[in-house]
């Protein structure tokens, strides 16, 4: 097992190199430059030209790339043009926020989706199943940001239960208030994110349960005289959770990716919001760093999914 994991990690090296080149070129290919519009619009184009030259932005791409990589290995992701701050510090400051929000959303998503999916599959065609299906279809049909805006409007604005922006109240003093304030700020975005995130898992799980219910091995269990309660517990649940378990590997990478929609709508200072702002302001250094991190996380997520799947499914062994 460890050999396979090591091998997969080694294979990731060329993958990451190719990824980094692609990321770098993509960022280069974006129109605009970091200086136009970000400094005084009356500034002399000559001066912008000078700044571009100073920052090495006229060098051939491979030279710029090499520069970037060398700095990367020194832990230097460059400075953000927008914030005038090292990218690494910028990201480190946001990663925590995103991690907590995503973790909360993920736990909530699975806590809601697993019982719902299993219940709907078990009572296929009956009233509770219909209710759950209608819920998933309706939620799926509405664009996510609309759900978020409606959520803010209803719970944050009309009812006033939750704060609608930021990650912490400026008035929070002491550790207890800090934690409490953090929690109240992630409640609404987490809840709405989970509401949307459950849809896929519920539908997937529901059809898996229905498939398992009609499978031959369940018929075998019935012919053994196993009560249906135990058939669900021992045969159907575990088998239908397999694809969901494989999925979990990817969702763990989502812990740091953050949700662009949620964070933007809630102005929640996380990675997703940082990403959107960087694109708007053509903050190349931040964009490349973030896309690279996302890419590496996805590669790790794939590996993680494979490992999880091999642990839960005896048919898949990676040794």
């Amino acid at each position: 097992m460890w050999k396979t994991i090591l091998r997969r990690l080694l294979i990731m090296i060329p993958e990451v190199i190719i990824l980094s080149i692609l990321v770098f070129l993509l960022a280069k290919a974006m129109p605009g430059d970091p200086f136009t519009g970000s400094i005084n619009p009356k500034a002399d184009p000559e001066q912008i030209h000078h700044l571009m030259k100073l920052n090495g932005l006229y060098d051939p791409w491979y030279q710029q790339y090499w520069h970037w990589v060398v700095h990367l290995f020194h832990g230097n992701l460059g400075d953000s043009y927008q914030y005038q701050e090292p990218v690494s510090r910028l990201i480190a400051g946001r990663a925590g926020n995103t991690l907590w929000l995503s973790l909360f959303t993920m736990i909530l998503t699975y806590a809601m989706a697993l019982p719902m999916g299993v219940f709907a599959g078990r009572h296929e065609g009956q009233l509770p199943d219909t209710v759950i299906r209608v819920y998933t279809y309706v939620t799926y049909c509405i664009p996510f940001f609309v759900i978020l805006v409606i959520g803010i409007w209803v719970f944050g604005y009309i009812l006033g239960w939750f704060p609608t922006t930021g990650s912490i109240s400026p008035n929070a003093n002491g550790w207890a208030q800090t934690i409490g304030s953090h929690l109240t700020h992630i409640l609404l975005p987490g809840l709405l994110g989970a509401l949307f995130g459950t849809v896929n898992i519920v539908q997937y799980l529901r059809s898996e349960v229905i498939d398992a219910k009609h499978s031959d091995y369940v018929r075998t269990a019935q012919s053994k005289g196993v009560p249906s309660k135990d058939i669900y517990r021992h045969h159907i649940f575990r088998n239908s959770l397999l694809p969901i378990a494989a999925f979990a590997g990817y969702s763990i990478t989502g812990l740091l990716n953050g949700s662009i929609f949620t964070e933007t709508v809630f102005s929640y200072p996380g990675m997703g919001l940082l990403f959107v702002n960087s694109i708007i302001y053509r903050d190349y250094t931040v964009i490349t760093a973030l896309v690279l991190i996302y890419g590496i996380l996805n590669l790790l997520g794939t590996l993680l999914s494979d490992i999880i799947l091999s642990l839960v499914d005896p048919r898949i062994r990676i040794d």
Partner: protein
Amino acid sequence: MIAPLKLIKDFGPNFRAFIFSQRPIIANFQSPKLWVHVVVNLYIFVVDRLRMTDHQFWGGIFVETANNFLRIKDVSTAFKINGQYYDAISHINLEVHHDEILAIVGKSGCGKSTLATTIMGLHDPSETHITGEIDFEDTDLLQLDEAGYNQFRGAKIGMIFQDPLSALNPLKRIEDQISEVMTYHTSLSKAAKHDRVLELLNQVGITNPQRTARQYPHELSGGMRQRVIIAIAIACKPDLIIADEPTTALDVTIQAQILDVLRDIQRENHAGIILITHDLGVVAETADQVAVMYAGQIVEKGSAEQIFDTPEHPYTRSLLRSMPQLDNQQDDLYVIKGNVPSLQKMPTTGDRFAPRIPWVPASAHEADPQMHEVVPGHWVRCTCYQTFQFPDEGGVTV
């Protein structure tokens, strides 16, 4: 002490059942007090039975009256299709005895498997409508609820499925899948179950039971998986084993081995076996009794010799004629023209096989075909068998 009067209810219909009911007492043979109990119980049993007729009395003690322990009476199973019920099998009457293999033959879609799953109670009650009676050891299975059925399934009736790969749970070790049956029907300890699993695997001809017990279904070959399925079915020594095409997915050498295993088990446990197959070769090799099904009905039943030596019904004769024979070196085999109608289009009156033998005049068929006993124990549906001839035998009379 167990009150003797209470036990009377559990005596059952015959001597065998009585002895069986005394088992917990006999097991404690060291205690003379309990032997007194057995004697008292026996006395009450005999006195109780003296009220019966002579035949019943002696029959219960010396003759196995409950030999035909499975009796299927007028059973029909209808499936719901687009809100309407259609009979998949209609008015089936069958008996299975101890120490006997009953083969049910017919082509796919004729209702063989439906019959098997009906006996096992594996149909979703909201989608099926079952009528009739299935008497199994003095219980009408069709009257049972799920919990009641689970007392029989696995314990007294074992089922062997057609596709050995999909019939096993891919995520569970072989040992767990076999011992699961015992969990619900015996009070064996974990270690005892483990021993029994190894014993069973050995019995079904697996050479390295220790290793196989630890393996997962995908690590086994098709023949091994089918053996595991058989081991599951026989784990609790059932009186009745239903084998639904147990050899279809296997190659011929493995087929023969599996059939041998089945026969050995039947001899050892004195079980009755219902063998469902479309393979006439398998039937000829193993069956004692044969029932031929066509379009949800039994068209002919009798002993294996009767069916193979003197087949009567046109369908049985067509089937046997379409089988390759060593002594018959014709170029072409006989082909039964036409198709079995779908459930929705099944005619409700008349001979269902009539459209497949169009040269037989309508007058030869019965309006409502019944089973006729040709010779004792040999039953044929419809009267058309009396005059039926194949076209090349001069049967084209219309």
